[in-house]
């Protein structure tokens, strides 16, 4: 399905979404309380049927975080990117999508470990790579570690 038709479907469901098309994918940005509804709609709607979450990541822009979900459909073979902005930098919280795509469980544990973003309704949210007594979130831009990192 082309990006134009996907854009119409998304705007019809959620008029407040910002839709931008770049060279590769259609990018949809919503608020952090709407992301779960949008994700559920995109998976369950028979016209879009996005059942394969192939990448979930987080980006640290210095005053806010951005969660990025790349979705693919095994039926129609189209892709879409949905994003959400998390403005609260002290206690970033967002809804988990584990009940929609169970593969998100490990991705969200990784983001919790390295960025500190907390996920509601996650079945097992704990650190995955670093030790339990590690202080700090390494992938944030303001992370400094004078003991371990040799700067260059």
């Amino acid at each position: 399905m082309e990006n134009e038709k996907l854009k119409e479907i998304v705007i019809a469901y959620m008029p407040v979404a910002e839709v931008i098309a770049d060279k590769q994918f259609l990018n949809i940005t919503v608020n952090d309380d709407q992301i779960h509804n949008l994700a559920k709609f995109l998976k369950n709607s028979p016209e879009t049927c996005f059942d394969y979450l192939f990448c979930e990541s987080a980006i640290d822009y210095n005053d806010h975080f951005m969660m990025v979900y790349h979705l693919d459909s095994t039926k129609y073979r189209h892709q879409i990117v949905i994003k959400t902005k998390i403005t609260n930098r002290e206690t970033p919280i967002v809804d988990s999508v584990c009940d929609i795509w169970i593969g998100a469980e490990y991705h969200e544990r990784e983001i919790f470990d390295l960025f500190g973003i907390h996920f509601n309704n996650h079945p097992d949210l704990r650190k995955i790579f670093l030790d339990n007594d590690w202080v700090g979130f390494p992938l944030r831009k303001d992370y400094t570690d004078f003991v371990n990192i040799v700067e260059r």
Partner: protein
Amino acid sequence: MKEEDFKDNETLELFKKEGGNVLLSTVDAMINWGRSNSIWPLTFATSCCGIEMMAAGASRHDFARFGIEVYRASPRQADVIVIAGTITNKMAPVLKRLYDQMADPKYVIAMGACAVSGGPFFYNSYHVIKGADHVIPVDVYIPGCPPRPEALLYGVMQLQRKIKLETIGKQNDIASDF
């Protein structure tokens, strides 16, 4: 043997022949011959260098002909631990525990740039130990990323030369100049 006398392989061969300043009796020679020609390693490979270690054990660069007959999975039965791969902060206590569980005489070979000094991950990484010798004392360092199997064989031969210079009269005090 003092560290400053350990110069190169020719000097070592001469020491052995003339007796140098190391007292080697027939008992020593026999024990060292037995120990050096049958070193059995522990299965310990963390990353890419592990594949080159496996290739060194396969049929083309066979290292069973150097005495490394089998890999022992249990540290109590192994003589040498070949650290092939990067050591991270989380893996370091595990490595120390394995080394402590090995029985004397035990040797350590640090294979690959990551085990020697942190390798390509030296700068800007928060979770890599910059060299396995921050955790356990190392006998032989093999540079390369990854080192060719022939380089690993050369490293093992260096370890054999080092073992042949030991004496059971004076205990091998590993930690004295570490």
